[in-house]
């Protein structure tokens, strides 16, 4: 009985979240398509022709998985951060707080919404890449799917935690601007870290996004700068840490209960 109530509540939050980002598709689905097209044109076609190969693959093919992953990361984070903060701001988060909805169900619903948007955006970016790459091969479908789902979950959780602490709309743009964007750019989206001096290769390995981009690239192309086992371990580890953090915050009512 309890589980069926939780399932209905979870499905309700998920449907509400999907309806939200589909209702404002011009803000949520179109921008990643345009941005990634520009990346493909500038870095892939124009700059890429001079670079030649990277990791044994044409540069355009090399950056496709990284760009998809970049879109997944930013859209997962932005979806949950803005939706949850709006719910706090408009106080409609109270609709869930007065109802018998557990923190885990709230997290599940919001993360599910972030995941749905991220996967849809990933499909759009993949379709855009077909305009620039003759064929997109899949080396290991399981690693590909597991990596994209876990990465999207991870950044959805990150967006949720950010929104819990945020007091204004400015607060939900600080982390993407000053943390996510630099880490993504330095996480091997556009280059192999084997090109870096040894010291910087070591420093780069502290960046968790490096593991996500490389695991995803392995799923597509079968090449990676890091061990896949280590990469999946890092992603799962961060997921656990962020889930426990988000659960504790919601359970205590931080930022949402007086």
């Amino acid at each position, binding site marked *: 009985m*309890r589980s*069926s*109530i*939780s399932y*209905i*509540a979870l*499905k*309700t*939050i998920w*449907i*509400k979240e999907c*309806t*939200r980002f589909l*209702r404002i598709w011009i803000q949520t689905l179109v921008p990643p398509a345009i941005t990634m097209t520009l990346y493909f044109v500038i870095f892939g076609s124009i700059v890429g022709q001079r670079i030649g190969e990277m990791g044994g693959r044409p540069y355009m093919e090399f950056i496709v998985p990284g760009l998809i992953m970049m879109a997944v990361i930013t859209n997962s984070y932005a979806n949950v951060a803005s939706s949850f903060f*709006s*719910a706090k701001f*408009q*106080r*409609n988060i*109270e*609709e*869930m*707080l*007065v*109802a*018998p*909805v557990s923190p885990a169900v709230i997290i599940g619903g919001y993360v599910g919404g972030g995941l749905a948007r991220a996967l849809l955006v990933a499909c759009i970016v993949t379709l855009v890449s077909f305009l620039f790459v003759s064929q997109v091969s899949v080396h290991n479908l399981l690693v590909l799917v597991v990596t994209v789902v876990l990465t999207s979950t991870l950044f959805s959780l990150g967006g949720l935690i950010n929104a819990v602490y945020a007091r204004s709309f400015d607060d939900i743009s600080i982390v993407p601007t000053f943390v996510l964007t630099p880490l993504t750019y330095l996480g091997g989206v556009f280059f192999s870290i084997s090109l870096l001096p040894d010291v910087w290769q070591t420093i780069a390995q502290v960046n968790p996004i490096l593991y996500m981009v490389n695991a995803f690239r392995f799923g597509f192309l079968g090449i990676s700068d890091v061990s896949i086992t280590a990469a999946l371990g890092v992603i799962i580890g961060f997921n656990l840490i962020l889930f426990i953090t988000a659960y504790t915050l919601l359970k205590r*009512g931080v930022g949402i*209960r*007086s």
Partner: protein
Amino acid sequence: MKALSIRGLTKTYKGGHVALKGIDLDVQAGDFFALLGPNGAGKSTTIGIISSLVNKTSGTVSVFGYDLDTQLTDLKRQIGLVPQEFNFNQFETVQQIVVNQAGYYGVPREVAKQRSEKYLKQLSLWDKRNAPARNLSGGMKRRLMIARALLHEPKLLILDEPTAGVDIELRRSMWDYLEAINRQGITIILTTHYLEEAESLCRNIAIIDQGVIIENTSIKGLLATLNRETFILDLAPTMGAGAAAGLQLEEFQWRVIDDHTIEVDVEKSQGLNRVFEQLSAQAIKVVSMRNKANRLEELFVDLVEKGRQPAEVGA
């Protein structure tokens, strides 16, 4: 059966503000109960704790026997909350808002859609079911919040200032609706600034001020304690200027408002007949009469003022 039982409830906010100082309150099942108090008295904090939007500092709360600390899920299912401020997503449609709310309580989507038709029709919102909530008028938004609170069919409906800013006609229709659902067995707890609303709708009342319950009784019992009422009498305009100032009224305290209007204080023991006897003897014609203030309002002001008088300091 008690719909609500509160014992020793306290709330101290982070900044140190003590909103509740250990209140006890019981509301019987089926009651139509008013919780009154001036701004900042602790009404919204009490409601916030019952509906688990505010964490209590100490004390116990149970709703239909379900304890807030140990049976929160069951407790929440008994309650429908209509908050003071509009707190729905302004971009969602009317039907999405109510159906989603039911979903949070575990009502399957198809059942929720059927119920939404019933409640939105009852509250004259069915025609607006596909409209975004931001396009509704203030009165419609208030009714939407009532529909939203009822969709999971709670046993206790809590309304925090439900008719604030609503025009008289709509307020009356909301009163009729609330009376009808109360007759069907839903217990209602209401906070309001319109004391006329509490007097005409509610059977029992608690008055809270500065975090303390200063009165908890039936409306009838409370009104019975009213010893004095002030009436405004309008005199016939044919009586000429200064008619009011020239009249004599013995035994009563009275004041002239203008040439044709007076204000008379009548003790319960005196009765109104003596006023009219004296006016008739002076050939003064009264064309209309009304209470100066709502009777409950007078009591409310008296009780709150009495509660705020400084306590005598012992030697």
